[in-house]
């Protein structure tokens, strides 16, 4: 019988080393030996993703590695998530809608933010790329999101970020929905200009910003 801590470390290493098939096998072994799925997710898979994020911050890993690490993490989640107890599956999480604004299909940065925020415990609703303004607001209403994360790489499409903020205001949702923006052409100054709540420079920074903006709600969720 494998020691739980050893298995968790191996799952974490599997994510860091981008070994998706190995992570699946380890996750199956972990469950077979009767260990709780939640610990496997947090202590194994998410731990590995956080280590990968740190390697990315240190410039030891690049975007391609981070995407492959997340691929391994999701492969493991596919095994472990169905075995979470009902209470955990229904536990309230902070919900965030994320996407690349209409006109732009550059979604690498958006994907990295989604990955790191999921690893941090947010419930992410990914609308993908080239997303119309109205779709962000409609999705936020549908799922009761506290956050909208907007990304673009193009100066031609950054104006759509402001349109999302304006539409939230028109729909009287601005008080309850915070907006984070990111991408090469935008900045803190641009965030202020369009009335967004914050600009995040990197995927890891986005997690900190999201936690700060939703701190009160997080406290309520964990109370």
């Amino acid at each position, binding site marked *: 019988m494998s020691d739980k801590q050893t298995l968790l470390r191996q799952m974490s290493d599997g994510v860091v080393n981008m070994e998706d098939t190995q992570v699946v096998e380890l996750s199956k072994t972990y469950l077979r030996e009767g260990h709780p799925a939640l610990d496997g997710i947090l202590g194994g898979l998410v731990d590995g993703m956080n280590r990968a994020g740190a390697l990315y911050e240190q410039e030891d890993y690049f975007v391609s590695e981070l995407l492959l690490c997340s*691929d391994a993490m999701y492969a493991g989640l596919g095994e472990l998530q169905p075995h979470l107890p009902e209470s955990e599956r229904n536990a309230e999480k902070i919900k965030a809608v994320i996407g690349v604004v209409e006109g*732009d299909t550059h979604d690498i940065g958006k994907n990295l933010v989604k990955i790191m925020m999921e690893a941090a415990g947010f419930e992410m609703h990914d609308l993908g790329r080239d997303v119309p303004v109205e779709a962000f607001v409609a999705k936020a209403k549908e799922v009761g999101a506290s956050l909208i994360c907007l990304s673009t790489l193009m100066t031609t499409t950054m104006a759509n970020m402001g349109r999302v903020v304006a539409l939230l205001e028109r729909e009287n949702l601005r008080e309850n929905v915070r907006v984070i923006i990111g991408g090469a052409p935008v900045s803190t100054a641009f965030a202020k200009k369009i009335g967004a709540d914050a600009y995040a420079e990197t995927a890891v920074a986005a997690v900190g910003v999201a936690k700060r903006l939703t701190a009160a709600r997080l406290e309520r969720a964990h109370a």
Partner: protein
Amino acid sequence: MREEPACGHLDAARIDEDLAAACGCALPDAHRDAAALARLAVGLRRQNQARFCSLPFCCTVEAEALGGAITLGDATAGPRALHPVCASLREILSLPRINFAEGRIAEVLHACALLDAQGEKVALEICGPITILAGLIDLTVLFRDWRRDECLMREVLGRLTDELCAYALAAAQAGVAALSYADPVGVMSILGAPRFECLADAHILPLLRQLEGGLDIPVHVCPKTAHALVATGRGFWRESAAPRRTGDICFKSRRAAAGATKELALA
């Protein structure tokens, strides 16, 4: 290693509706009309006071010619990929060969010929393989399959090298005065060193060597790619022996002394 020259080009070829209207064109239809493309290129050159007419105002022509699902967008947001058409890297090899006499790529080449006939100098921008692949397949799938089977990726890169060589030759025959090569997705900051080195050895160097040997026109390599080739020992800077007539097409290294022109040489 992740530091790269900043890119100021991304939106540089943007065409606004006023310019299109002044050129007697409507977007996005102009993307499929050689004569309209040529008029737009001249209009943009005049607007930017450039010496060259640049085409094709987007980085989806090659992916579309290989079977990619592309929307041409509108005046605000240009052509872009809609969704992946391949579920695995191996499926890329099954895509039909580019037919340079059909579709939008034929219109682009025809536009080059029209401009050349008018005495304009044309710079054709060619996209590198990772950007092309990003228009055909999900990037995570691409990276996953690449990691699992580097031989397969080299085969795909070899296929795309052949396609781009043929494109460059067709462009030269159409009277293009200079080629520009850029791969916005295939840069070091995204790929990391090992994958960039694989890309360089299996595609960039073979392509540039073939173009160097087979074409009598200058090739401008995107500074991000050029710097990465030098950083990985696959290229070096040398002083330009004689200033080229290509003006702004010549690559000026940020490391060069003010005013000095350096060019990339392959190691």
